[in-house]
């Protein structure tokens, strides 16, 4: 094994890869933003009374859950312009980032709708009742009492969904987007496919460190926001 394995490739690849995290973050950031919005809308549909909306939202979640990201990515990347063409809109000049963001937004939205729904449902209905019984309006009750508590419940799952997204982002390379994964592939290609193992190890180290940072960050957030829920802090 020593014959081929050359760890210098690992250490050389890391600085070459790091700048491309920008693209990874950019895609993830936009997808999280739009995906959370979509998730919120879907969650509201699921929690609402309207059966049709409920079924639409649940159906959407099921379909998205059942579609491998790479397949979804291709369907969006080629399907959306094809459909748009029928309406006389030419999307072929759009950057591939656009389609990647749409894909991951759709996916993240499905994930988030479940996260938001379960967080909302985890808040005891008594909290809402108490809020209106002291004279808060519906909106006030949600804004001041329900949301801050549901937020804390949702945080860890949100963090998980974010991690998932960062990792899925690796697939964006298949449509030519150069993020860290794409750069790794380019490096390998420019070495004529040699020493791929070392480059991928370098790549995985970056992902790993990143995920640990995100995880810790969310743990911190959770601790900060859950101040009211800790039972044992002696007064």
């Amino acid at each position, binding site marked *: 094994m020593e014959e*081929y394995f050359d760890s210098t490739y690992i250490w050389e690849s890391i600085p070459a890869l790091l700048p491309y995290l920008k693209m990874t973050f950019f895609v993830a950031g936009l997808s999280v933003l739009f995906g959370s919005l979509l998730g919120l809308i879907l969650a509201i549909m699921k929690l609402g009374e309207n059966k049709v909306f409920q079924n639409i939202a649940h159906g959407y979640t099921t379909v998205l859950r059942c579609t491998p990201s790479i397949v979804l990515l*291709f369907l969006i*990347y*080629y399907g959306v*312009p*094809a459909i748009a063409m029928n309406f006389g809109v*030419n999307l*072929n*000049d759009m950057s*591939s980032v656009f389609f990647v963001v749409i894909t991951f937004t759709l996916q993240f939205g499905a994930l988030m709708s479940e996260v938001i729904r379960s967080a909302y449902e985890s808040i005891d209905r008594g909290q809402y009742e108490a809020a209106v019984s002291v004279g808060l309006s519906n909106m006030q009750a949600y804004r001041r009492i329900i949301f801050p508590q549901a937020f804390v419940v949702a945080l860890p799952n949100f963090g998980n969904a974010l991690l998932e997204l960062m990792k899925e982002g690796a697939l964006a*390379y*298949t*449509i*030519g987007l*150069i993020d860290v994964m794409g750069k790794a*592939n*380019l490096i*390998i*290609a*420019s*070495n*004529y*496919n*040699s*020493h*791929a193992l070392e480059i991928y190890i370098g790549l995985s180290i970056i992902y790993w460190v990143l995920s640990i940072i995100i995880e810790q960050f969310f743990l911190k957030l959770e601790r900060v926001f859950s101040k009211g829920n800790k039972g044992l802090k002696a007064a």
Partner: protein
Amino acid sequence: ESGTASSSDGDSASEVRTVKVAYDQSSKPISYLDDNGNATGYDVEVMKLVDELLPEYEFEYVGTTSEDLLIGVQQGKFQVGVKNAFWTEERTENFLYPEEFLGLSSIGLVLTNENAHIKTLEDFASEGFTLAPIAANNAQYTVIEEYNQENPDNPVKLQAGDQFSVDVIQWVNEGRVDGGVTIEGPFQKQVIAEDGPYHNLINDVVYNEFDVIKTWPLFNLDEQEFAAAYDEAIKQLKEEKKLSELSTEFYGRDLFEVLESVDR
């Protein structure tokens, strides 16, 4: 709307039309993104020369993966794509092949020295050897598949795989497989070149060419006019021996010398 295929009906010849040329960005030395982020490689450089000869066209190079390139050209996202593509009957339904080919590709078997006597796919197959997986969208895959269709009694064990996870030369040297298919360019750069990453294996592995094949740019089906313009330009380049120069530069050998014997 200069980007759409249908608008190319030369309404005014003075107007420069921008076309998107897709290239496989990870296929050194055929086409790739160099360390400075520029598109280069044999196929790309040829297209750059073509561009120079076509004042009414302005080429914009888009790097991508080969799969995306194929679908993108088909859909009209790109007007043309270069990825060392070979010609097959079925593909003519989805792509417009021009009259003139773009370059030549020497395709051969990578083998260990002890198997250096295997020169053809027939020999390889009769030995019962295993072959490194080839990405399904790679033309090499089609070449082997075609051989297998023509030789149903003596097929090569063909496996589809992924471009990045298979390092043909290393796999052959390790013995993970008995042989692999590759084109000559990369082998030159990896093993023969002094600074190649596998130069140390120069006495252990051999490259046995079994075919030289024409490679083609793939045009979107609606791009007849553009393809015709390309044909004019490339004819001129061939006459000027420009392509031979590029072949030598990128493949280490002027493949046009064996053009006579190329049958497809």
